[in-house]
């Protein structure tokens, strides 16, 4: 069986004037793969993640997503993005809409589903994240963990082939983290292609097919969780793991 390449980044750079923040990143994500990006703050993990759905621009290099090089102009980004779900650190639910409306907005506005279909879809997705009883709630009435699970349901309703998670648990109270990771674990098990930026090392160890360590705008080391966590070679990775595990 041949695997499909979902994402392929080649020699990607990003500069702000003289300040180079991404210094030549090559990254490939295969279908059904779960890739976890770790590293210190400011290392460029979130920036690289956001390049995959075009929220960040690149200065040079290729970003090929589902066969389209989105680093070049003339690509219908809206089409590409329909196929990539994104979950943010601060949830970014639409506060002026109910949970149901948050989920049905994109599928109905884009003409992908009728109103009835979208509502059924919303119910199904809320079932996956365990929040069917909150369907008519407004975002302000939800806890952080619930908001993040609704955000995941919202992204899933578009039936994306790839899901991007940008520090999905960093803004949560500790007791909420488990629920969100539980949903992500379930998705990983079902074969969803996922790229995750996180500080949850235990979770990374458990679900990742591949762990990538970022430092100073570059990929310094990558491998299986066992290689990265148990046999790190790069001294910056060793220092990083020591700091994280001691904390």
């Amino acid at each position, binding site marked *: 069986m041949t695997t499909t390449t979902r994402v392929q980044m080649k020699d990607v750079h990003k500069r702000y004037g003289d300040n180079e923040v991404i210094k030549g990143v090559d990254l490939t994500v295969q279908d059904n793969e779960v890739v976890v990006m770790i590293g210190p703050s400011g290392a460029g993990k979130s920036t690289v993640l956001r390049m995959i759905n075009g*929220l960040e621009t690149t200065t040079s290099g290729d970003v090929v997503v589902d066969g389209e090089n989105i680093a070049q102009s003339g690509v219908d980004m809206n089409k590409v993005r329909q196929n990539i779900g994104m979950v943010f650190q601060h949830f*970014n639910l639409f506060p*002026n809409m109910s949970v149901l409306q948050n989920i049905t*907005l994109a599928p109905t*506005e884009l003409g992908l589903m009728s109103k009835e279909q979208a509502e059924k879809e919303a119910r199904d997705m809320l079932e996956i994240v365990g929040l069917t009883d909150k369907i008519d709630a407004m975002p302000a009435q939800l806890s952080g963990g619930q908001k993040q699970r609704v955000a995941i349901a919202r992204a899933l309703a578009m039936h994306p082939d790839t899901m991007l998670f940008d520090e999905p648990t960093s803004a949560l109270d500790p007791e909420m983290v488990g629920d969100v990771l539980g949903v992500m674990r379930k998705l990983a098990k079902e074969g969803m292609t996922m790229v995750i930026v996180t500080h949850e090392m235990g979770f990374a160890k458990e679900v990742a097919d591949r762990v990538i360590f970022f430092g100073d705008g570059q990929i310094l080391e990558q491998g299986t969780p066992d290689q990265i966590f148990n046999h790190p070679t790069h001294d910056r990775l060793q220092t990083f793991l020591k700091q994280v595990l001691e904390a």
Partner: protein
Amino acid sequence: MWLLATLVAFVVAWWVPQQEQSVHAAEQTYTFGTDTTFSPFAFTNKQNQSVGIDIDLLNAIAKREGFKIEWKQLGFDGAVQALQAKQIDAVAAGMSITDERKKTFLFSHPYYKSGTYMAVKDTSIKSLKDLKGKKVAVKTGTTAADYANSMKKKYGFSVVTFDSDDNMYQDVLTGNTVACFEDKPVMQYAIANGVKLKLASDFKEPDAGTYGFAFQKSEGELVKKVNAGLKALKANGQYAKIVAKYVGNGSQKSQAKQTAKQTESDRSFFGLLRANAGTLTSGLGKTLELTVVGIVCATIVGILVGLLGVLPNKFAQGAANTFIYVFRGLPLMVLALFIYTGVPTLIGTKVPAFIAGIITLTLNEGAYTAAFVKGGIKAVDVGQMEAARSLGLTWGKTMKRVVLPQGIRIMIPSFINQFIITLKDTSILSVIGLLELTQTGKIIVARNMEGFKIWTMVALIYVIIITLLTWLSNWVQKKVRA
């Protein structure tokens, strides 16, 4: 650009019918600008009609010579500027014939010999000699002001300039200045209306200046008709009758008697209110008309420019920022005068005062609106835009469904504020002669000199309207929030 085009289309739609009206009239109609505050030459009487020596003379001449006059109550400065800008054909507003003005305008034969006179509160000041080291008041642009300025060095006094007679008299009454200079009939009119000033007892009248009607250089034919008519009126005694109607035989006592016929007899607050209710109501009507049309246009333009300012495009943002910078930076009055009297000179066609007023409000209030619309949109968390775009929604759909609904909530208080400011700002449009509430107030005060009572009425009307507008806004705000 299409924004500007819409504006122009709107303007043209308004003013083409008006143009046609004046062009295709059966009898030749000329537009005359006049003052509203220069009693007894050009002012409005208690029935709110343009009256005065100038008006009556010209109406009689027009009847004789077979043409029609459309009167525009623009105020003296406004009328002169409108004539320069070719917005009107002529000015009849007690204008002195000077060499300077002859360079720009054609003048009729003189129709009145005016004499500058000095009025005082303290009768110990009798002549120019008593003014040493003191301050005197004049009204801008008058022969009397030129006279005072020519004498100040010789007699050692200084000159303070006001833009209306009313303010000039008031300054002498409060004692800031000790005397004022103005044409004698004008001053007698004021005194007859209860202004507590007296003509200086030993003042020697300087060589009298003359008043003439001023015309555009191209109106030679009209000037000939007016001159012929004036001659005929003088010959048949009608001229003398008209002058006597306003100034009697020229003495203070006689003029006072004539003045009483033109102005209100009951000078109590409610008496004045009753007498001027119609005039004030029509002024208020114009103010509301300007406010409503102004708010609608400014809001539409403001929202469009504000949206332009958040488009992900450098040129669009630049255009929006320039619009905001220019029209927020210009004082409303400068903008109004520029559009009403500046632009017509440039494009060679008239801009009606109401249209000029609306364009002024649209640009100025629109710029403020655009600034807070842009700010309101930018105040919405950038994560909202990112989340919606990540779902594959276009920029436009994201704006419409996600960002704007949130931004509008942020903007509502600013909108209400801007509506109230727009209402107040319409008062500034009185400079281009629009007969809105403030201009109405000026006109009434110029007739009866009852500044305190009339301005109290005008202020109260504004307060009441603004209170109603605030209530309405709060009600709407509650509906939107619900």
